[in-house]
């Protein structure tokens, strides 16, 4: 199987789907002539032409609205945001229109669109451009929100997202575009709502998604050296959420550390903490731990920048606390 980078895996997904269905269009800033700000859409303009691969002005609310309207009119747009930080400008299109259109129109209009781009902390981008915003999207009913952690998952899940008849928020971690992994050329789909068990274990459950999966697996490896066998679960999809896998694991291990690089207050991670306390109460032997980013704007200073985010060391310490070893 070929090793591919995350950006190549995403490109393969879009390429395969655009070849399959001529109603699929791609629009966003610099997606066409510049081949994408992160080179995800490289070569697609040459292949599919300017009618299907469209450069837009710097106007997030405008082109996101165009995407929503195009979807309502029968196309299947992929809207690329240069980053989710800029997509805040378009939040009304997502919150008020995309998510609720099927409901508000009594089922007459669906929005089969994908809104994708880089999310999460990166490096040296400071407070406004380095933040994990999944809880904003996961909060509103009507959206599907997914965030893969490997090139393999990215390809299969983006294809599922493009084929989905509902608006899907597809979050790619900014620092992951160059990460490599095995991606088959053959066609495959990864359905939403199915978490992946990355490592089996009995002592503590480590739950996470997206880029933090790498530090989670690093922490799990360190914990093994201490004789702690962690079960590692990659949620992959936040809405729908694979509650079954979460509960099955926590009921087995009786302890849980949730890792979410967003801020701790009212986040996806804190919500899962509540779900566990409600549905696994009689199986908990220790309080559920949440390793999040620190509750501050992202510092520019690199040392502070790293210190503000979840790290293997923070995860290890949280896991030890659930085992009453710290």
């Amino acid at each position, binding site marked *: 199987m070929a090793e591919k980078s995350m950006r190549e895996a995403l490109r393969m997904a879009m390429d395969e789907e655009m070849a399959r269905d001529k109603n699929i269009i791609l629009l966003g800033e610099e997606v066409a002539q510049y081949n994408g700000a992160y080179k995800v859409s490289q070569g697609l303009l040459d292949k599919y032409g300017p009618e299907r691969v469209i450069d837009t002005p710097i106007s997030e609310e405008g082109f996101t609205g165009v995407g929503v309207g195009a979807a309502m009119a029968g196309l299947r747009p992929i809207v690329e945001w240069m980053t989710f930080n800029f997509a805040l400008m378009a939040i009304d299109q997502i919150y008020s229109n995309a998510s609720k259109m099927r409901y508000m129109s009594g089922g007459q209009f669906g929005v089969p669109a994908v809104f994708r781009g880089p999310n999460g902390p990166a490096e040296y981008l400071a407070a406004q451009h380095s933040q994990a915003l999944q809880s904003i999207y996961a909060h509103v009913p009507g959206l599907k929100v997914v965030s893969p952690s490997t090139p393999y998952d990215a390809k299969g899940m983006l294809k599922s997202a493009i084929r989905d008849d509902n608006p899907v928020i597809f979050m790619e971690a900014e620092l992951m575009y160059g990460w490599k992994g095995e991606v088959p050329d053959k066609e495959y789909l990864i359905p939403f709502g199915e978490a992946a068990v990355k490592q089996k274990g009995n002592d503590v459950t480590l739950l996470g998604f997206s880029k933090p999966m790498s530090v989670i697996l690093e922490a799990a490896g360190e914990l093994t050296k201490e004789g702690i066998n962690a079960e590692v679960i990659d949620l992959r999809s936040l809405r729908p959420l694979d509650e079954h896998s979460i509960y099955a694991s926590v009921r087995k291990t*009786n302890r849980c550390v949730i890792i979410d690089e967003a801020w701790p207050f009212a986040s996806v991670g804190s919500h899962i903490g509540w779900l566990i306390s409600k549905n696994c*109460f*009689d*199986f*908990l*032997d*220790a309080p559920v731990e949440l390793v999040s980013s620190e509750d501050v704007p992202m510092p520019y200073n690199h040392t502070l920048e790293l210190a503000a985010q979840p790290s293997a060391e923070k995860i290890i310490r949280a896991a030890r606390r659930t085992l*009453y070893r710290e």
Partner: protein
Amino acid sequence: MLALSPTMESGKIAQWSKKEGDPIESGDVLCQVETDKTTMDYESTSEGALLKIIAPEGSEVNVGDNIAIIGEKGEDISELPSETVQPESEKKEIAEPEQATHQKNPQEKSILTAQPAESEGNFPRGVPVSPLARKMAADKGIDLHSVKGSGPRGRIVKKDVEGYSPPQPNLHAPPRGAALRDEIIPVSEKRRVIAQRLSNSFYSAPHYSLSVEVVLETLLSARTRINKSSGEKISLNAFIVKFTAQTLVNHPMVNSSWEYETIHRYGTVDIALAVAQPDGLITPVVHDCETKGIRQIDHDLKELIGKARENRLAPEEYSGGTFTISNLGSMGIREFTAIINPPQAAILAVGEIVKKPLVDENNDLAVHNTMMLTLSCDHRILDGAVSAAFLSDLKKFLEYPIEALL
């Protein structure tokens, strides 16, 4: 409330498992009731919805009293008598009104009454236990009071419950350095019943006791041989229970109860064995000992003692005894007098096996394993000669087991 055991007259509602408005199926556990023996699940015999709880947690309820109203959801129950039973703590306030007159500040009283009940379910408030540990302990019938927590602030966690072994009653001195302090310990329902029953027994039954020394050579060597050949260790208690049962068959008056106008001589020999628990003692009963072999008795004893230590005995397993044996031999007690377990006529106290030099009829001196048996008797039923004959036969059986077959 229905009686949960034959001797139960009242019980304390320890914890409600259902709340008002909950749907109830027949067989659902409504609440936990602390009886004279143990804490038990109280199951519903009716179906419908729990409309009103009459007896709140902590209240003392007599058998036959209403504890809750079950009916159809939404049914009007305003006509039904449903005066709420007061928890004991509040009752006290009413029973001693003179206390209030001593209080200068009337607010003090309301602060006192506003205090939460001291215990909640299986555990006092303020001592932490993980939800998992709480559930595991409930499933296993382990009293969390006796589990030591290893988590922060002494939180009881899974491994503490898993690693829990029922405490052997520790009647020895506490380890050196343990700080002494004044302490007022509330009396558990069980302790209260033990105190009441044994005082009644001691004051109403005129006790006297007889002792005899038994030489165990034959029995011990037989037991050693049996244990070697079968690989399964039969306890000495099983032998003592069986020979006592056989002696009781021959002396049925000892297997009886004083019922004031009549004496009840029992048609079966149901022997109770005193087992210590952290908060008192309980006497599981091996029924029909006269028809059972030693191996069967040993099997029954092991099962019952195990359950007794975990507080899991069902009422039929600790009631209906016709005679009791109390053995303190394992704690190094050579000889003691036990108080009769009412309404039985006698109790046998078994001491430690001790090696002793004895002179035989040929004036030869030899070392033997001996054991002291003391029979406490209710003089209303048993005169000295009757008890002496029983004890002498028991000694004969234990020393020459073949005699029991004659």
